């Protein structure tokens, strides 16, 4: 360990050195080894920097609704977006067609595409509020929770070799349930941050088992819930100011009393649903692993306040309370920015988890107003905020750019063309091919029990992630092996699937069925004409299988327009 050098570095460089050596939560195993380290540095006097005046509670400067009113909130969004576009003299693109909207809203909210019947019914529906109805329907769909669990499991459960003994499925199922029940965001995050008990009793403890060191916990909490990249190493290269070392360890102190079981031990003949997390009574041992110069740093929130905590009191509830308070300068902004980026591909602040005061939002007033509203009147209601955004004209714009707005990437003049995540791609393909999902009841994913074969979905996702932590939704990142698989494997070459889709229908109808099933739209007149002549030339089932193959391999299928 390089304690001595730590004092010389700013907070984050020191961290990079630390991580490899592990500021582990299962302190018992480590104590003897670590005691060999020299600790002859005199502790410095702890001096916190002056609080940054730009870090303050969000204020609603725009006329936000006085009650939870999604339609009114959508109008507020549209007005704010329109104003910025007018200032920049950039025209907005037109409203999305029903076809664009249908596939987009399905994939964004449920992670999959509609069946041909659903698609047809929506497209033929003449009621003026059919889009609003569909938004409500999809937010209530169980697949909504699955989609959110896919996203959040990836963040809370890093793909790290140390996590091969930790069960992923309990956390995944728990998240799915929380999102489907629409547990408010403050309650959900509090459950995670303060979790104690065993995996079996309280799957939220998995967060601690999968991030088994004080620094990892501090980093992921800051990054995912507060929208702050504390871990950013090599400050000297960071373009903006950064947090100071004492501020970091002041936050880390809240996790100083956590005692997490070692999953590896449970794996050896034990039961890894029976491992878990406790809040210790003292902070002494955990403190052994803080850099020498930070040992005297008292627990302190990033906003600068210092909580009054007795040494015997648990610390994490105080952290959760501070985070989820309406006046917290980070928490609600981070939520709004994330949910916005979930739908638009980009946030008001990008990267979405780097919301430094210096990283100016594209729409500061709108971000703050939404943040204030969701933290107060909005009661951290995730489905409510998603609904309001989805109802807005801004969300319902086409992704076709005009010559005047094609270069705009920050003002939301047109929708971003997003890339399906591996999970979405698998689910969409499965929807088309009608194959029974092989991952067990309720479409579970996660690590299969030791020795068992991972589910088809997990395998597919791993193959497409190809070792990355998460897939980008704004860059197409699949490589040659993935393209080969989509072209040449049975997924897109199954004659039974073609037969099931087209049945005994006429060529025109068969083509329409393929399009409705895979692309959730009818073919255009031009497509119909070209494909009819293709069917005539090549003939029947062969032609249909060719068309389905081409559609499934098309960028339209693999993108959300």
């Amino acid at each position: 360990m390089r304690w001595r050098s730590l004092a010389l570095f700013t907070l984050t460089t020191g961290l990079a050195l630390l991580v490899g050596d592990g500021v582990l939560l299962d302190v018992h195993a480590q104590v003897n080894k670590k005691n060999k380290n020299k600790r002859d540095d005199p502790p410095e006097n702890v001096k916190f920097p002056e609080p940054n005046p730009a870090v303050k509670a969000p204020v609603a400067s725009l006329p936000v609704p006085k009650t939870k009113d999604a339609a009114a909130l959508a109008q507020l969004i549209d007005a704010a977006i329109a104003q910025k576009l007018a200032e920049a003299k950039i025209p907005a693109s037109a409203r999305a067609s029903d076809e664009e909207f249908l596939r987009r809203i399905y994939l964004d909210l449920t992670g999959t595409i509609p069946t041909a019947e659903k698609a047809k019914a929506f497209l033929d529906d003449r009621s003026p509020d059919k889009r609003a109805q569909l938004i409500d329907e999809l937010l209530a769909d169980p697949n909504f929770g699955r989609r959110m669990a896919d996203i959040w499991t990836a963040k809370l459960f890093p793909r790290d070799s140390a996590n091969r003994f930790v069960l992923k499925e309990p956390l995944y199922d728990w998240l799915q349930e929380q999102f489907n029940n629409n547990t408010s965001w403050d309650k959900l995050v509090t459950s995670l941050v303060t979790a104690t008990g065993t995996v079996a009793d309280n799957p939220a403890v998995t967060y601690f088992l999968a991030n088994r060191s004080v620094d990892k916990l501090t980093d992921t909490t800051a990054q995912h819930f507060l929208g702050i990249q504390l871990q950013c190493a090599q400050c000297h290269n960071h373009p903006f100011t950064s947090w100071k070392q004492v501020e970091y360890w002041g936050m880390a102190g809240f996790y100083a009393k956590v005692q997490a079981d070692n999953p590896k031990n449970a794996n050896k003949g034990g039961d890894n649903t029976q491992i878990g997390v406790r809040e210790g009574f003292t902070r002494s041992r955990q403190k052994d692993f803080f850099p020498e110069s930070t040992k005297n740093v008292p627990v302190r929130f990033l906003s600068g306040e210092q909580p009054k905590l007795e040494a015997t009191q648990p610390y994490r509830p105080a952290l959760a309370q501070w985070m989820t308070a309406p006046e917290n300068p980070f928490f609600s902004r981070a939520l709004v920015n994330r949910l916005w980026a979930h739908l638009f591909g980009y946030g008001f602040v990008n990267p979405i988890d780097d919301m430094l005061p210096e990283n100016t939002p594209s729409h500061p007033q709108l971000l703050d107003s939404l943040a204030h509203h969701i933290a107060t009147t909005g009661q951290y209601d995730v489905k409510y905020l998603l609904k309001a955004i989805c109802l807005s004209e801004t969300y319902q714009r086409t992704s076709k750019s005009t010559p005047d707005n094609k270069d705009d990437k920050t003002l939301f003049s047109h929708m971003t063309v997003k890339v399906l995540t591996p999970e979405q791609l698998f689910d969409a393909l499965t929807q088309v091919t009608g194959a029974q999902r092989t991952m067990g009841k309720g479409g579970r994913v996660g690590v299969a029990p030791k020795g068992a074969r991972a589910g088809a979905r997990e395998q597919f996702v791993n193959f497409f992630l190809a070792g990355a932590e998460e897939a980008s939704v704004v860059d197409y990142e699949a490589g040659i092996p993935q393209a080969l698989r989509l072209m040449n494997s049975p997924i897109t070459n199954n004659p039974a699937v073609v037969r099931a889709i087209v049945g005994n229908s006429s060529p025109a109808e068969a083509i329409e069925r393929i399009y409705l099933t895979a692309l959730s739209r009818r073919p255009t007149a031009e497509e119909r004409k070209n494909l009819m002549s293709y069917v005539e030339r090549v003939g029947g089932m062969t032609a249909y299988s060719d068309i389905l193959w081409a559609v499934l391999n098309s960028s339209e299928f693999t993108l959300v327009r």
Partner: protein
Amino acid sequence: MFSVKLQEKTRRDILKLSAAGVFAPSLSGWLPLLAQAAAQGGQGRVKSCILLWMDGGPSHKDTWDLKPDSQGAGEFKPIKTSVPGVQISEHLPEVAKIMHWGTIVRGMTTPEGAHPRAKYYMHTGYREGQGGIIYPSIGSIVSQEVGRPESPMPNYVCISGRSFGAGFLGPKHQPLLITDPNRGVEDLKSAISASQFDNRVGLLEQMEKAFHREYGADVINDHKTTYQRAVRLMQSAEARAFDISTDKSKGKYGTGRFADGVLMARRLVEVGVPFIEVSLGGWDTHQNNFARVKTLSQQVDAALSTLVVELKERGLLDSTLIIWMGEFGRTPHINNRGAQPGRDHYPRAWSLAMFGAGQKGAVIGKTDKEGATVIERPTTAQDFLATVCELMGIDHTKKNETATGRPIQIVEKAKPFTKDII
């Protein structure tokens, strides 16, 4: 921040240009630009690297650094090699004859002693989890820096083992995995006739044109480029390198997946693939060390020596770097695990070997009489990886940026030893 965008812009421009010729053989327009881009990376004489990955951590005292007079000497005898004064294990007799085209690094010393973390470390030069980043493996770095984006062939191929991937460099530098060398590339062959496949690609092209006309997004171009390369790989003559069934040398490399994988690696070097990794598992010899290391050494001996000789015959040895290594060494003493004892993990002092690339029989570093401590020229993973970079004409101090704009040096704090070995 700005430099990311700039870099991104250049990448996008290249992709855009490449997409202009989707599914068409006409590449003349953008080839010069790509050639330029590639030239910024590797200018080295060495064009390809084969990493023979010895999974499990081979015992240095029973392969490259024998200590016949030590307490834990073990059963093997040292033999002379083609380099005067340099001895290696008696179970590497053919390799001993080509030692003058190689280097033994006997002073490896590293901090990771658990398999997954050590494998990660030796592939990336960084500790797993450090700074919250997933680091690229050396194969992906080579793919990024000297790979040929215009080629239908992949720039990084990984045979009969799992590997460490591209990390923040992105999936484009992910290895193409070959599970079984006798089966070649998965999904490479179409299930249908060539003419039907052409029909399908024609349909797809039609759809892509219409969609791109309407939406014009970069991601559509990127999708086209990837498909274009995949189709070209399916149809390319170079892809025959993946078919070892008719190679006259089959058998000379020995038998089994490793031997077949090394043969495939030679074929891939012949068509210019810049990085190939071939795995041989079984080196985690906590028990029955000597019988197992003997068998494994025999496999290595046949495959490695044939590889070097055949590359030499083809005039490719000087432009190919071959690395033999695992994640760490094994304890200098022999453990007490039952009737057939073995050696346990030992990262503190261990050996690796390299061949080709103009090497001339050097030995770098030295351990004490037990093989327990490095007493001369301790070599870190970073020193080694930087040497690999230098040999391949890659600037190892170059910084690549993560998705969030953090600049990460290819190899940090390295003291390469290139000039001592060529």
